[in-house]
Each structure stands twice: as structure tokens, then as C-alpha cells.
């Protein structure tokens, strides 16, 4: 259908554009203004950031957490997707089980993690009852940061791997059965089928999952804050701390802007290198 110079589509689309300008565009500009406003001139907040050891620790924590969880989630998500895609009897049930954390919030998921890693949690009880340790130990808290760090990592992996799993499982449906049959005829090994046929078809989904997860991992907040407060500072956590505890919207915006900057770079890389297909061509809901 071609409607040339028809104003209707623009009229129907304009409320969306107006809303996005009002609630994304303008706040973004204000974030810039806030971040570049300080008693020491426009760069004052950023100078303060760069000079403070805290910022570097925060950036390092965020990057290390992202660097650990994203690859692990990709590997585990892929393994789960390949496993479920075998379509054994009852695979749908397992699919729904894996999907449980999808709908859970980071706050709720961290509280669940607390039932396992808390002082009177499942893990301590199990360790004490089996006699492996005599007294319960702390897994969370400022004085045991190494352990708390790994609890956060495990919680994030538990919570967000299913997202990668669902994206990859959707991608696996695009693998043409005939290719695999042809590969069988030519005597491809399982490994060869995986690397030569499945992986290339899955690549766009893997990149999508990788980048979405990188974006969100860089904004990690709820899990860290609920489980360990500011014990392990992360970017979004510092923005929240500066805003709500120190009432300094300028520093909060400076942190926010750093998060935005990284997000823009990541999304830009994504759009340039892996431009997604037009989504209406993918058809409706299956």
C-alpha cells in the first residue's frame, strides 16, 4: 500500500515522538546541564570524579561485574537453549521453568538470593548440618566483600541468564532442518554441525543478547544495592547515592551521563554492525 503525502501516518506517529522528546530528549539535555554545572565551573563535577579514588573503584567494579557475568550468561544461555531445543519429552515444562526469573525484578531476585546466602540462609544451614563448618559464616556484608562480590555475580547469573536463553532459543528456530540433514549425509560430526551451521545462523541472536545484556549489566543497581548496599559501589548505585543521600543532582547526573555515554557507544556499535531485520517482516507472534 502506498499513500503518498498522506498526513495520517505522521499524525498517528507524532504523539510518540512528542512523548519521547518530552520524557527522554529534554531530560537528557537537562542531565547534561546538571552534570556540567558546579561551583568550580562546567568541568567541576568531572574533575571531582576523576580525582576521587571512588569513581575509579566504581567504574572498575561495574566493568569487572559486566565482564564476568555477560560471557558466563551467554555460555550458560546457549547451553540451556541447545539443551531445550532437543525437544525431548516435557521440554516445554523445562522451558517455562527456566523462564521464571524473566519476570522477576532484580530486587525480588536478590531477596531470593538472600534466602540462600543470608546468615541463617540455606547454604549456611546445609554447611553446618553436614558438619563442613562448625559455625555459620557471613557471605554478605562490608567486611566480607570478596564473598559478597561472588554472591552478586551468582545472583545476576541466576536472574539474567534466562533472558539470553530465550533470545537464543528464538534464534535457534531459524536453523533450517534441511541443512542439518544435508550435513548428516556428508558425515559432519556433531561439533562440525554446531560450528559450521548452528553458530553462523545464531550469530545475530547472540550479538543481540550480548549487547542487550552488556547494556543492562552496565546499569546494574538493584541486586548490588539490596544485597550489599554501597559495599561494592557500582555506577548506577553511586548515581542513586549522590541523588538520594547527598542530595547532589549534579554529581548524580555526572554518573548518569557516564552510564548514558557507554550505552550510546554500545547501541551505536550494535546498530552499525548488526542492524536488525525490519521487525514487521518477522511476522506476528508465533
Amino acid at each position: 500500500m502506498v499513500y503518498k503525502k498522506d498526513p495520517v501516518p505522521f499524525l498517528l506517529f507524532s504523539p510518540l515522538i512528542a512523548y519521547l522528546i518530552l520524557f527522554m530528549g529534554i531530560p537528557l539535555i537537562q542531565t547534561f546541564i546538571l552534570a556540567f554545572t558546579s561551583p568550580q565551573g562546567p568541568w567541576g563535577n568531572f574533575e571531582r570524579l576523576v580525582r576521587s579514588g571512588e569513581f575509579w573503584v566504581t567504574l572498575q567494579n561495574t566493568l569487572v561485574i559486566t565482564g564476568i557475568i555477560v560471557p558466563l550468561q551467554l555460555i550458560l544461555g546457549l547451553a540451556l537453549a541447545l539443551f531445550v531445543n532437543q525437544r525431548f519429552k516435557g521440554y516445554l515444562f523445562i522451558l517455562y521453568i527456566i523462564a521464571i526469573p524473566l519476570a522477576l525484578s532484580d530486587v525480588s531476585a536478590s531477596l531470593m538470593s538472600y534466602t540462600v546466602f543470608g546468615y541463617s540462609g540455606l547454604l549456611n544451614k546445609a554447611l553446618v548440618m553436614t558438619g563442613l563448618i562448625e559455625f555459620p559464616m557471613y557471605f554478605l556484608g562490608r567486611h566480607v566483600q570478596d564473598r559478597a562480590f561472588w554472591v552478586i555475580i551468582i545472583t545476576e547469573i541466576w536472574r539474567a541468564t534466562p533472558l539470553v536463553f530465550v533470545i537464543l532459543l528464538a534464534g535457534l528456530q531459524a536453523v533450517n532442518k534441511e541443512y542439518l540433514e544435508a550435513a548428516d549425509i556428508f558425515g559432519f560430526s556433531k561439533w562440525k554441525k554446531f560450528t559450521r551451521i548452528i553458530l553462523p545462523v545464531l550469530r545475530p541472536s547472540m550479538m543481540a543478547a550480548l549487547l542487550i545484556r552488556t547494556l543492562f549489566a552496565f546499569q546494574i543497581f538493584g541486586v548490588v544495592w539490596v544485597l550489599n548496599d554501597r559495599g561494592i559501589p557500582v555506577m548506577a548505585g553511586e548515581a542513586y547515592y549522590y541523588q538520594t543521600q547527598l542530595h547532589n543532582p549534579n554529581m548524580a547526573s555526572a554518573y548518569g551521563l557516564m552510564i548514558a555515554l557507554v550505552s550510546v557507544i554500545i547501541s551505536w556499535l550494535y546498530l552499525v554492525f548488526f542492524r536488525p531485520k525490519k521487525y514487521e517482516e518477522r511476522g506476528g507472534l508465533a
Partner: protein
Amino acid sequence: MIKKIAILVVCVLIFAWFVGPVFMIVIASLTPSTEYYKMDQILPRSLTLNHLESLFVRLKGWEATMNSVQVALWSILISFLIGLPAAYVLARYVFKGKNLLRIIVLMTRSFPVLIIAVPLITVYLRIGLNDTILGVSLAHTSMILPFIVIITSGILSGISVEYEEAGMVFGLSRFGSFLRITLPLALPGLAASAIYAFILSWNEVFVAAVLTLVNRTLPAHILNTAMTSPDYFKFAAGTVMAVPAMIFIFFTRKYLMSMWGISLK
């Protein structure tokens, strides 16, 4: 045979890993405190509703839950009012510049919504929206809108345009034929995407926590009190937050792939 056993073992492990923590928090929220703190006892011998009661009655859980529900419903309403027409355009019209519009929507999807919270406070203070349900809903809408547009335009383009054209041949207006033909066909998918929107809003914590002080949503309330609250509060709160999410995912399980799988692609 060995393969079957292997699959079964992996399934059991997956089940334990994903269901375990959920089961533990539901049980913990029902366990009397004296039993929870016994180190040699994992499962309770008696159950109690005291924790949930004190969360709701004494610790402002009920107000927070109601706030969360209201925020989510407002966000869904606004998102659909604005998003559905835009989705219709992407699904049905062909015109110059459409690709640009699509890219705008895709770009905004990965917009880090947490950064709009801080500047919005100043604006809200000026127009009297600070610490209000509507204020949080408007912010949540900007996070939800791109997803609603992407998902619903997928649904709409899955419904053949010929039905609509047939309606128009028989004298319906374009809008009338959308309302009478396409919309009813799209309804199940739209309901699923509304639920998706509900979950996005229900779970969002950063913006809600920054924008509210007294009228906290449930996650914002928990975030601000969890560290200083007794354990039973955490378990009760975590359970209450998880329940609607689980129910919804059960009802929309057919749409799992299309919502989470495709909208994020």
C-alpha cells in the same frame, strides 16, 4: 537409555537451580522466626501468615503494593494510547522516512531510563508531580513505550491487511475497520504485551525510588528499607513482589519467545 537418564538429570538440576530460590523465599516468608533461625532445620514444621500480615499492615506494604499497581496500570494505559497508533503506522503504512522512525524506536529501546529520573525531579517539583503516582507512571511510560511499539507493530503486521481492506470495501472507514476487524484479532497478543508492560513497570526500582519519598512503589519501598529491616520483612516483600510476575508469566507463556525473544533482538 543413557541419554534419557542424562536428560532427566540435567532437567532435575535445572529445576532445582531455578525453582529452588523461589521455593525458599515463599517458605521463608511463611516460617515462624524462631524456626527460621534454627541452624539445624531447613523446612518449617509450622507455617504462619504473621510476616505477610506485618508487612502489609505495619510496614506500609499494602500502600506500596497499591501504588505499584496504580503506577503499572497508568503506564500501560498511556503507553497504549500513544504506542498503538505509532505501531499501526509502522505495521501498515509505507512512506518515505519510515525507516528513520523505526530506527528512532529501536534506539530509544536501549535508552538507560535511570538517567531521566534526576532531571525529572526538578520539573516535577515545579508542576506538582513530585512524589506522585502519575509522575512515576509518566517516567515508566517512556521506558515501556519503545517495547510496546515494537511488540504491537509485530502483532499488527501479523494480521493480514486484506481483512481490513475487505472491511473498507464493505463501507467501514479505515479507523472503523481497524476497530472492528484488526483490533479483536490482535487482542490476545495485545493483552500479552500489556502484561509485559505491567511487569516492566512493576519491577522498575531506580526511577521509582528516586522520584518518590512517601508514595513509594513496592520495589522502591523495599530498596529503602531492606537493609535495615528484619529478615522476615525481606522474605515477605520478596514473595509479594514475585507472585504477580509468576502468575503473569504463566498466563503469557505462549508469548514468551515473541515478547522477550523478539522485542530485544
